[in-house]
């Protein structure tokens, strides 16, 4: 991915496993969010290819799809580094909007819905049930009829996660889900993400700076620095990788990859 003269992400290749949690880490400016924007279609990569295979064998070339199709057909959902909720709408409405495409088809692209078709009413009721399920899962069911903008920050993050889940994703991309959460909240988040993987069979790709979260829940970690991959492996492998330590802690000119770094 190139912006003018700046190459933000280059020569990067990795696999995010099915039903696995893959963490993407790296120092600030390493290109993590740029990569996310490429995967979810907000940027079009200048070269390269992003392939997503569903469990049923359908494959999607993400770099060729417009962003709304990536969410709708390829079923990739995402959350944002700075939470993006529909602040003036209620929690329930936020989750109903996430089911737009299902409801839109059921409303006969508005024509049938305008005259109150029965099948639309049924679909809407099941959409509300689904919203209720996810609100319950993130512990916000009691505030369902309040404005999303009135929620405290931690709750807004949980709501954004619930909203992403309402789109029935195959791959869930989370941009710093633990940012701004306290210890108890991030422990809850860990449990929730594991449950998504184990109970719902979701593949998760996450960017995170909180190493407690990353090391604890990731099945696999990919480390980026200056737009290229410097390490890729299980938490234990990455933890001991000298080039990762060098990228995070920095090394002197002479002592690059010396035993001192390895002892850490």
């Amino acid at each position, binding site marked *: 991915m190139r912006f003018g003269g700046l190459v933000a992400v280059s020569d990067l290749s990795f696999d995010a496993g099915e039903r696995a949690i893959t963490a993407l880490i790296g120092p600030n400016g390493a290109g993590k969010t740029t990569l996310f924007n490429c995967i979810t279609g907000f940027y079009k990569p200048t070269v390269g290819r992003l392939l997503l295979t569903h469990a049923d064998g359908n494959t999607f070339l993400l770099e060729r799809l417009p962003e709304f199709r990536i969410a709708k057909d390829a079923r990739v959902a995402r959350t944002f580094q700075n939470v993006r909720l529909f602040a003036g709408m209620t929690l*329930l*409405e936020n989750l109903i909007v996430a089911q737009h495409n299902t409801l839109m088809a059921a409303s006969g692209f508005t024509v049938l819905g305008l005259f109150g078709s029965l099948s639309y009413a049924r679909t809407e009721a099941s959409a509300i049930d689904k919203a209720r399920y996810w609100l319950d899962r993130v512990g916000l069911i009691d505030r*369902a009829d309040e404005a999303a903008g009135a929620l405290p920050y931690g709750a807004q993050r949980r709501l954004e996660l619930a909203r992403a889940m309402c789109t029935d994703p195959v791959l869930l991309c989370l941009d710093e889900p633990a940012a701004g959460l306290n210890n108890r909240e991030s422990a809850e988040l860990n449990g929730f993400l594991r449950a998504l993987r184990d109970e719902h069979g979701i593949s998760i790709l996450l960017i995170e700076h909180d190493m407690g979260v990353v090391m604890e829940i990731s099945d696999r970690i990919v480390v980026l620095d200056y737009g290229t991959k410097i390490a890729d492996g299980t938490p234990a492998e990455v933890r001991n990788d000298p080039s990762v330590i060098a990228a995070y802690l920095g090394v002197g000119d002479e002592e690059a990859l010396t035993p001192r770094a390895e002892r850490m």
Partner: protein
Amino acid sequence: MSGPSPAPRADQSAGERVDLLAALKEAALAGAVAFGLFALLIGIRTEQGPSGALVIATRFGTLAGFVGAAFVGRFILAVTRHRLAIRASLFAPPAVKRAAAALSPYLALILLIIALIVPVLFYRNRYVLDLAILIVTYIMLGFGLNIVVGLAGLLDLGYVAFYAVGAYSYALIAQDFGLSFWVCLPLAGIFAAFAGLLLGFPVLRLRGDYLAIVTLGFGEIIRLVLLNWQNLTGGPNGISGIPRPSFFGLPFNAGANGFAATFGLRYSPTHRIVFLYYLILALALLTNWVTLRLRRLPIGRAWEALREDEIACRALGINTTSTKLTAFAMGAMFGGFAGAFFATRQGFISPESFTFSESALVLAIVVLGGMGSQLGVALAATVMLGGFELFREFDQYRMLVFGAAMVAIVIYRPRGLVATRTPSVSMRERKPIPADVVRDARTESPA
């Protein structure tokens, strides 16, 4: 706010004494600003001298009066400012507030009943009937623009273009093809919706001020095309002799097969006016019904989500292109209906009727009503156009009074008359959402 305890009052009077100097300073500043503003406007004036040449006359006395008024007024305001909050309760005593709160759920119903019986109450008063038709026309335009601005959050300053397209489509189709009003009306709506799509495509990526500028230009382009396409639109001469509406085929005339004769009534020109009134009322109610239904359908929720955060919409798989275009097309279609009605009511249209000030008026109605609120739009249209008429006797000061009223509203009700948003769906109870968390067309989407 009401009934302050003695202790804070003592504090306030202590603070007042200290603040006197600050108040004087503030008043002096206001006086200086007033002097700067009025020195040339009021203080100097050109008059015709005895020889016929222009001479400069001075009016320093009047100028001193203006500056003095600004100084004294600001001083009084600065000294009594902390009491204003308490005094505000004088305007609306608790009893009035309670009554208003009790009535507010039924306000829409009350307004509807009043709207339905207006022709009965004022049957002999042509002036009131004409005014009522005008108000309901603007309510309908407000409803249409509300879809674009209030729901989808797309600031449109060229709404009059669709009104014009509807009016001209109706006039030309009715004249050239001799089709009846009921055939031409949907056609006018379709043409206007096409114009909406035409505007929508180039502005898909724009929001806020940038969108406002382009739509403003679009409104002017349509007006200039109407003005210059002589062969089709008659240019500045407009189109006259537009067919009048008939009561399902029965013309409103004194003839043997006219409306009055068929129903065994004495012919009266008021019949047509009353029919027109109910026609526009029905169109406005249709617009209202459709809008209220759309709000509870996925498309309406997508419009509101688009207003709140466009990027989040795209991440959720909503096709923002088609969502925006439908908003433009829907809003334009209702504008087109209103335009067709306008053409048939006037019998004559020209580009003069479709200037920017019309767009501004309709937008003012939507903003004043409270973005997205149907009831607010109806109230605002009634207040604004009713107010215009009410202040007619103030003559040249009418716009001044009107401007002052607008300033007062912007200060005291910045989010419009109805400053809450009603959720489109709820689990237990529909709690109104205060406007301060709701985004509107004037705010840019977060980057």
